[in-house]
């Protein structure tokens, strides 16, 4: 009998626990932000700081639609399945009006597919995968950051000017690396049909055997190298390459390597004279870029990364979006995204109606070492709008939607 009673008690407790619904406060507009705060802390923390800074500024000016704007930050452990679960929770239980976030492309793609199925708006702030707005693009997903294709095309433009004919590529063996190499090859051969790709190296992500890779590239005797490795792989590649003299007399073009998140760990061993995309926060002297960097350093007491910029811009985009829509209704938001213009630290960007890609550009320059740290010099900001495929091509990839 005792057992039955305690069982009943247990069941009641479980039922209460399962049914408990946290009260949703109505005094702020909530955005569900999902990211890999632990797994990719070096990238996610500057991003989160950027968002927080923007929110403080927006809310100090009265918020949006008369309410405070709020981001709910949740960690997905870098696991797509987990991200989808959290997305559902944010939308149905926490009262979020739309989703944002992710750095990893696979999580971004999972969230995009989920958003389309459930009819939630998803702002893919950082993932780079081209498929996100093209082959797998859908009505509910919008991407802010300069995509792999755009950045590779920018580098290809610069690469064609060197006149180098024999190219080697090295890229991590996963979707981002493959996309980048394909985009670079396509853009470069379009400009200069005579180029030849003499070797393609595909180290496993974060498991590079740098000595072997350098030997394999050296064996092919290329004129120039296109690099897509990053993080620890890049550091090892640079060190082995320098030690073994791989980069002597060769032009190197390298994707993302100028971003502080990747360049700073290399310290005084940062490569010199590579053409890279990145973020030269230390060199702004005026304008909105400078204003943002100053505000960020004042608020957080640390240098901004590219993640900080993207985070800051994400919050700006969301605020502008809700203001334009005039409500937080999903359909209104979706319509407002078409040709949405947002003024940001890097200038005005537009979310293209055609493929939901923002026209955010990238800084392209050469690497150098200054005061024992890697920096970008002779950089220019290239507008993303100029480095996208033709509208017909995009339409074809999106399958006409």
């Amino acid at each position: 009998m005792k057992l039955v009673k305690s069982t009943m008690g247990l069941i009641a407790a479980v039922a209460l626990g399962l049914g408990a619904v946290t009260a949703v406060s109505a005094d702020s507009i909530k955005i569900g932000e999902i990211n890999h705060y632990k797994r990719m802390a070096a990238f996610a923390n500057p991003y989160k700081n950027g968002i927080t800074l923007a929110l403080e500024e927006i809310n100090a000016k009265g918020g949006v639609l008369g309410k405070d704007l709020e981001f709910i930050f949740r960690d997905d452990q870098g696991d797509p399945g987990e991200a989808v679960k959290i997305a559902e929770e944010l939308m149905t239980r926490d009262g979020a009006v739309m989703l944002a976030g992710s750095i990893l492309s696979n999580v971004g793609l999972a969230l995009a597919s989920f958003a389309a199925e459930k009819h939630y708006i998803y702002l893919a702030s950082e993932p780079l995968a081209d498929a996100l707005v093209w082959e797998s693009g859908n009505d509910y997903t919008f991407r802010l950051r300069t995509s792999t294709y755009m950045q590779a095309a920018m580098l290809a433009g610069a690469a064609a000017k060197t006149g180098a004919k024999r190219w080697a590529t090295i890229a991590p063996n996963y979707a981002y690396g493959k996309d980048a190499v394909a985009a670079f090859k396509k853009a470069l051969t379009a400009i200069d049909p005579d180029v030849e790709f003499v070797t393609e190296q595909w180290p496993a992500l974060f498991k590079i055997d740098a000595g072997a890779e350098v030997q394999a590239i050296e064996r092919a005797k290329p004129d120039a190298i296109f690099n897509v490795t990053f993080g620890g792989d890049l550091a090892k590649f640079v060190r082995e390459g320098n030690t073994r003299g791989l980069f002597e007399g060769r032009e190197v073009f390298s994707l993302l390597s100028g971003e502080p998140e990747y360049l700073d760990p290399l310290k005084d061993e940062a490569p010199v004279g590579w053409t890279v995309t990145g973020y030269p926060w230390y060199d702004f002297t005026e304008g909105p870029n400078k204003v943002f960097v100053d505000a960020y350093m004042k608020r957080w007491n640390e240098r901004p990364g590219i993640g900080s910029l993207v985070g800051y811009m994400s919050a700006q985009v969301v605020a502008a979006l809700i203001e334009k829509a005039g409500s937080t209704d999903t359909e209104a938001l979706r319509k407002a995204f078409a040709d949405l213009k947002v003024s940001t630290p890097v200038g005005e960007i537009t979310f293209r109606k055609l493929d939901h890609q923002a026209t955010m550009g990238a800084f392209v320059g050469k690497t150098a070492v200054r005061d024992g740290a890697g920096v970008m010099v002779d950089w220019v900001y290239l507008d993303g709008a100029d480095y996208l495929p033709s509208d017909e091509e995009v339409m074809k990839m999106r399958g006409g939607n």
Partner: protein
Amino acid sequence: MGLFIAQLLTGLANAGALFMVASGLSLIFGVTRIVNFAHGSFYMLGAFIGYSLLQVLPGMVGFWVAMLLAAIAVGVIGVIVELLVLRPIYRAPELFQLVATFGVILVIQDLALMIWGAEDMLGPRAPGLKGIVRIMGEPVPTYDIALIVITPFVALALWYLITKTRVGILVRAATQDREMVSALGVNQSWLFTGVFFLGAALAGLGGAIQLPKGGADLLMDFNILASIFVVVVIGGMGSLPGAYLAAVLISVLNVFGVTYIPQSTLVLMFVVMAVVLMIKPYGLFGREEVAGEHGQVGEVERPFKPAGLNARLIVAAFLLVLALVPLYGSAFSMVLITDIVIFCLFAASLHFLLGIGGLVSFGHAAFFGGGAYVAALIVTYSDTPMEFALMLAPIGAAMAAVIIGWLCIRLTGVYFAMLTMAFAQLLWSLVYQWGEFTGGDDGLLNIWPSDWLNDTTVYYFLTLIIGVGGILLLRHAAHSPFGYGLRAARDSARQAEAMGIHTKRVQWVAFTFAGAMAGVAGGLFVFSKGSIFPSELEIARSFDALIVVFLGGVKTLSGGVVGGAVLETIKDFLTRFEYWRMTLGLLIIGVVILAPDGIVGSLRKASERLGITKRPEGEV
């Protein structure tokens, strides 16, 4: 020819750190029988501590002193882990300790993040060894030469320690027969502590010594884990010369792989491992595990019994509560329970293998992810209706299990575990690198259920019916004649054979059955998430299930299910906080120490002590 020699040297240099870390793992396993999942964390700590020491110790002498100090520091950390976490649970069921080491991984991850920050650290170059020498015209870094020279010395020193000294004799004796050693008056626990120190210090040394070739980052721990398991298994568990040879073999093959098959480097290592184990099932220098060598530790196991009336009533009432969730719960609680039920089915299928069959698989994610991929691929490429794809998921997983099972079942114990892991990794690397077909790590998208099932509530019921049905089927199988045969094969293969049970065949069928049930879970998973990625085939996923089964209680029928439900619920709650990994790690370690019989086993004992339930008759 010059290039060939240079490549060979690169491979030999790479083998250095790999050998040190792997030999530590091998030693620890050989003596304590603990599969130390946290070994990658020791390696990572060695790198971080070495990095910090190098900031304060300048010059050539400083460099090598820092290497040694890093090794000693990590050795001390290893001792702390052994004393605090592992010593209290040596009498727990075999392999239970790996759950504790998994908790240690989580704690160290967050600690390292707190102390060293999130940014990658590039290791400083070794003073005096920054240049290159030219061998037949090819540049070879001098530090590579240093590594090639040092590694055999470390190996020789270890070999001397193990074969020529008294300590070494005791270690070898303990590797052969622990109980006999302790019966001869050797203080076994200090021997274990000492071996843990040595093993951890070797891992730390490996982490520190690779600094000039790389650096320290927070993903190092899991990144090296698969490689060192592979090395240890190819060399033979507990064999030092084997570990050295295997490290060289893997590293050299990898260097040539990079040059000649750059697209498939991931697969190569696991292919080599699978081939070696098929020819030499116990690795190059390993010995066959002697039966009874690690016989029953702890108390005598109770036979499984069908649940009594009370238990059935409780379960029925609980299922009723679950069935009524749509009436009072939120949409999210249904999503959460859907996730939990799927995971419980996955865990229960592993529990069937592990608890009933005594077959410890480290690669069960192959069938979970495999089933999910079968369903997703069919939907993607042939517009098959979802209902049909869902049915094909277990069939696909079972087919994979038939093949993998046939290759693995010949082995036993930890070799079986490692071979299953190798095949799971093989499958993972195939899916990961065959992007044209599987989508690679961009996965397969838009795999949603048919319209009539797409509603959250309807899919919730579908999951509940199939998931609970699957779990009940697994339980039923445990009590069927087939289940009895499987248990007989687990408890005493020889007696079971004598009674006319074809033990290997029974185990093969069980392996396939468990694979199929994991495939069911995978099928349900892919349609609930709408997409699938190679991460569902990763080692981490296999470990998830493994941890849960042990945590719930291997020697209880409901262990997998209860462990799965508890851990998933706690995880869902904890991930809202900043340092959730450390909290979860400490929680796991706490549960492991306080409840060495797992959650269910310990609850059962507690309730017997309190007189709520009765102890089975005839037991003392």
